[in-house]
């Protein structure tokens, strides 16, 4: 079966300063359907740059990105929007909820922007409530972000990322702004999603967070430095 993600020789160059900066310097990578991958590395090593390319938010300077076998580089603006809307969920370190909207309205945004398979207003609300319940926030549907804790906000963000049932979830330091207890809650949710078949790629600086993943990739200077199965995780599963 095709890998869900295949990138070949990704290069991203930023033309700032005198020397062009190679934020990605020849990254090649396959991620199979259903994997839970953690990406680690020092600050500035290119993790976010890679995630943005994978999330179709940014285009690489060179190289090829196939998502479920389709060449993302060839896609029109509308196709990219549809990709971000239905096939990829993105979670950010800073949550990125819209402050004026309630949790429910935030979760509904991706449905509102969906072009295909539109559903009735009632069905939408049900889908959003279901998504919020799946992250344990059914009762907070009508709260605004500033009435929620950081961990709760991130859970709303996860519900929003999931509401259109994407097969790929990208998370750039999802626990970066959270305390350890909230972090564990978030990781619990991600693990359970992964068990349901959602492919997850997550950037983190913390090894105990990374240890929730089945595969850990280390980046350095825009390149993949190491890539391997997470022994600890295997052991856990064995136990």
């Amino acid at each position, binding site marked *: 079966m095709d890998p869900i993600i295949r990138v070949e020789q990704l290069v991203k160059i930023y033309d700032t300063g005198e020397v062009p900066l190679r934020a990605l310097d020849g990254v090649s990578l396959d991620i199979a359907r259903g994997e839970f991958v953690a990406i680690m590395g020092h600050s500035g090593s290119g993790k976010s740059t890679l995630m*943005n390319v994978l*999330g179709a*938010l*940014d285009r690489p300077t060179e190289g090829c990105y196939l998502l479920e076998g389709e060449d993302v580089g060839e896609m029109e*603006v*509308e196709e990219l*929007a*549809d*990709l*971000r*809307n*239905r096939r990829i969920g*993105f979670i*950010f370190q800073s949550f*990125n*909820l*819209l402050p*004026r909207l309630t949790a429910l309205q935030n979760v509904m*945004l*991706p449905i*509102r*922007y*969906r*072009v295909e398979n539109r559903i009735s207003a009632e069905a939408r609300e049900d889908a959003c409530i279901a998504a919020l319940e799946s992250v344990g926030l059914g009762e907070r549907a009508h709260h605004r972000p500033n009435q929620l804790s950081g961990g709760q906000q991130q859970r709303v963000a996860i519900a*929003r*990322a999931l509401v*259109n049932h994407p097969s790929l979830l990208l998370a750039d330091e999802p626990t970066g702004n959270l305390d350890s207890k909230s972090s564990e809650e978030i990781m619990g949710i991600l693990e359970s999603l992964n068990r349901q078949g959602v492919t997850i790629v997550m950037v983190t600086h913390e090894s105990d967070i990374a240890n929730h993943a089945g595969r850990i990739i280390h980046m350095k200077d825009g390149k993949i430095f190491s890539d391997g199965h997470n022994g600890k995780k295997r052991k856990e599963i064995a136990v």
Partner: protein
Amino acid sequence: MTLIEAIGLAWEGLVLNKLRSFLTTLGVIIGVAAVILMIAISAGAEAAIADQINALGADLIIITPTRGIPGRPPTLVYDDVLALAQSVKGIKGVAAEQIVADQLIKWGNVSFTAPTLGTTPDFPLVREAPLGVGRFFTQADLDRKSKVVVLGSKVAQDLFGDVSPVDQEIVLGTTRLTVLGVMAPKGKVADTDYDDRVYIPLTVLYQRFLTNPMMNNRLRTVFVQATSRETLDSALGQIKSILAQRHGVTLGNPDFIVQTQEDIIKTQQATTETFRTLLAWVAAVSLLVGGIGIMNIMLVSVTERTREIGVRVSIGARPQDVRRQFLLEALMLSLFGGLVGVLAGIGGAWLFDETGAMRTVLIPWSLGLAFAASAVVGIFFGYFPATKAANLDPIEALRHE
């Protein structure tokens, strides 16, 4: 995203900044109101002119004296009227008019003051002001200086109520006059209320009311009604040469002005035209300023909400979704301005009319036109900010503070 959702979204954005939204639309409000007022004033002027033509006839010739030749007194006199009436071919009649200060009018114990006009027998014919009851005075009355009077319909009503006025004796100033008749109601033409006046023979006016010898026989205005459009020009020519001959002046340097109703209407039209042009400029400049205001506020809004735009794009908003959101916001701003402007325009037109500043007639399509203009302004000036929002790079937008 459906249109209704998009409208709701835009509305949220505007309500968030109520005062700012209102101030932004002031230019549009003024512009739209000016468009409506401009058209209402034009229509009002046209209606006034139409009324005047209806009331006075298009074939009216108006003769007025100029300051005249130095050393000689201004010379448009009663004898000129007699001469014109006798010699000019192709006219229905000649009416001289001379007004004096308002006179106290009395019958029994009723009294009030009324404008008093001295005139000649052709007045009802020339000014198209028919008699209601009784008769108008004749040339014989003028020659004999008969002490008679014809009343405007309102004066007759105020003075006599239900009593029949004809053959009653009234006192005007210090002169006893017999009522010959009452004019039919005619209403106001230009600034003159035909119904609130009394009419006396011109010769009696000179004898009893305008006793200053300097003023004797002197006339302010003479009206001549041509029989038709075709005879108008020839009548004009005859009048000029007869008057020039009688006054001993040349046509190149006359001591009188002969105008047609049309000439006078043209000057009036020129005045309203000037005002209308001014309003058109006010409308255009206000709409432009309003549009730039909207563009400015939308650019501010796009900058303020850069991160929001980034978030929306990251979860699948297409450039056209973002563009539509901001375009709708600009459109709603300008339509709100348009709505208030339409109300202000209607109010302004009413106020102009009510205070007598200027006659206005509201034209229904002008409301639609002005409202449409506000929509065009919103779309035109909202397009650039909306496109700017749509073309934002998602990564940079997300990184924006």
